[in-house]
């Protein structure tokens, strides 16, 4: 098949790889979150991310893409691309339209999965899936349209290279509301709730960083200089955050923690996301270093609050995203691509960034609250008290993350269900009278 003319082979090749890299971030998040919870909830927590690949990915193809990138008004996309109608091999920029859709879909998936960190170890699985699916359509897609789909923030000139507002502030605000609506875990604040597998946390953070090169550099939508800048900044900002985080850890407790290092990397990645293609490499180092402070102290503060944002989505993604979005308005330089920020003599850009932050926070928090109450009206959001005590893996999934197999008795099909299984051949009838 001949390649339609505006499509560039190099750009397409890079975006194919970048799409796979961003998709990998969701299983990476499963490891990051899964390691941070207790072993009795490891599978449930990992499935909260893993299942998002399914439900949000499907919702994106059916309607999410259209609501985000369809021709609509300033507030939301239209219905012209429902069921991917009109999304084919024609060029979108310099890559096939279908590839653009797939790339953006991976963003929708991870954004919805990020919220799960605020509600782990206590939310029922079905209502969770219903919530993130609806959220991806009614919160993610419109905010995505505002910023990247030609919506009102794009027209205003707010800068968000790869999703500081769309992904991180959006998920952070939803996480804050979800933690408040669900309420704290029953033993939160009374017992030490410790990470059960810190190596998983490091593995998850490492894979997130790898995938993030596709997330940020892929947001250039081509194999070009802007992608190279975003790629470099995705290396340098988290590097700075990691160093500052380790120093803060060391100054506070005289020990450098591994969970802290993993968190620092993620915070640096979050913060550089909106700025990646707009600021110079030294600015990225400054941005990464500065971003460590609010999130570090936010996490310390959170453990003393009644708000059980269990895995610090608000501190890492909310605060990190806000710092990144605002510093984008400070550090951006037209010379690197984009618009001049405060330091280049355009203070009004900081105002635009602030407006984008506030609008995203307000809409995401409000709409998430309504959606949670709506789902909660049909089914209880909270897991049964007993299930929460036992851990959600066995009651909700019928599996254990780490089973010794001791005491497990194989249930044969005849015993497994009261109804006869039509697929199994009935056992030979005993023949009487032979004796």
């Amino acid at each position, binding site marked *: 098949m001949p390649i339609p003319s505006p499509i560039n082979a190099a750009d397409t090749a890079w975006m194919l790889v970048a799409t796979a890299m961003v998709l990998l971030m969701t299983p990476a998040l499963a490891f990051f979150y899964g390691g941070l919870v207790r072993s009795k909830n490891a599978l449930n927590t990992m499935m909260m991310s893993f299942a998002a690949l399914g439900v949000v990915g499907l919702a994106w193809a059916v309607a999410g893409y259209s609501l985000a990138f369809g021709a609509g008004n300033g507030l939301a996309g239209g219905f012209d691309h429902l069921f991917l109608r009109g999304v084919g091999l024609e060029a979108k920029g310099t890559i096939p339209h279908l590839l653009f859709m797939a790339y953006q879909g991976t963003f929708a998936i991870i954004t919805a999965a990020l919220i799960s960190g605020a509600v782990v170890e206590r939310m029922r699985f079905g209502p969770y899936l219903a919530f993130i699916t609806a959220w991806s359509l009614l919160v993610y897609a419109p905010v995505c349209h505002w910023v990247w789909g030609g919506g009102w923030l794009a027209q205003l000139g707010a800068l968000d290279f790869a999703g500081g507002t769309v992904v991180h502030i959006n998920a952070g605000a939803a996480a804050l509301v979800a933690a408040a609506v669900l309420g704290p875990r029953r033993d939160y604040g009374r*017992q030490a709730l410790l990470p059960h597998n810190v190596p998983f946390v490091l593995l998850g953070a490492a894979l997130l960083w790898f995938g993030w090169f596709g997330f940020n550099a892929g947001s250039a939508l081509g194999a070009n200089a802007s992608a190279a800048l975003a790629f470099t900044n995705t290396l340098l900002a988290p590097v700075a955050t990691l160093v500052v985080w380790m120093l803060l850890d060391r100054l506070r407790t005289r020990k450098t923690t591994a969970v802290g290092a993993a968190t620092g990397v993620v915070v640096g990645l979050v913060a550089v996301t909106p700025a990646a293609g707009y600021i110079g490499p030294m600015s990225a180092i400054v941005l990464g270093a500065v971003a460590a402070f609010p999130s570090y102290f936010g996490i310390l503060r959170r453990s003393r609050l009644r708000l059980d944002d269990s895995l610090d989505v608000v501190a890492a993604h909310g605060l990190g995203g806000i710092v990144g979005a605002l510093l984008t308005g400070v550090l951006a330089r037209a010379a690197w691509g984009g618009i001049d920020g405060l330091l280049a003599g355009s203070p009004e850009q900081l105002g635009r960034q602030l407006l984008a932050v506030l609008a995203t926070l307000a809409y995401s928090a409000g709409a998430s609250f309504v959606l949670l109450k709506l789902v909660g009206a049909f089914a209880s959001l909270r897991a049964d008290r007993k299930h929460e005590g036992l851990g959600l893996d066995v009651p909700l999934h019928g599996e254990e993350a780490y089973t010794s197999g001791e005491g497990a*008795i194989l*249930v044969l099909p005849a015993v497994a269900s009261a109804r006869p299984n039509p697929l199994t051949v009935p056992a030979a009838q005993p023949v009487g009278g032979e004796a």
Partner: protein
Amino acid sequence: MKLITAIVRPEKLPEVLEALFRAEVYGLTISRVQGHGGETESVETYRGTTVKMELVEKVRLDIGVSDPFVEITVDAILSAARTGEVGDGKIFVIPVEKVIRIRTGEEDVAAVTPALMELAGS
């Protein structure tokens, strides 16, 4: 002296420990055990293989106490570990012939939960 051996639900362990500390019972040993006491089995499925978990995870506490502390300890465990459903566990109170604290060589009453010294003295 008695050895109190209690088998409790793992998810109740934090509450049991809290109750014991409140009752000033400080010396204890716990172990993770598996057992069966008539509760309904949980069913797990792995790729079409369905298994019944006949053995249930439990926590076993071993506590050496002097006679005046037996009731206090038993009450603390009962109040904290009970849910009212099958599978709450058991408490065994077993006579003990001799207790020796390895560090000092102290024996018997002097070697179990220290709080009982005050009780014995009062």
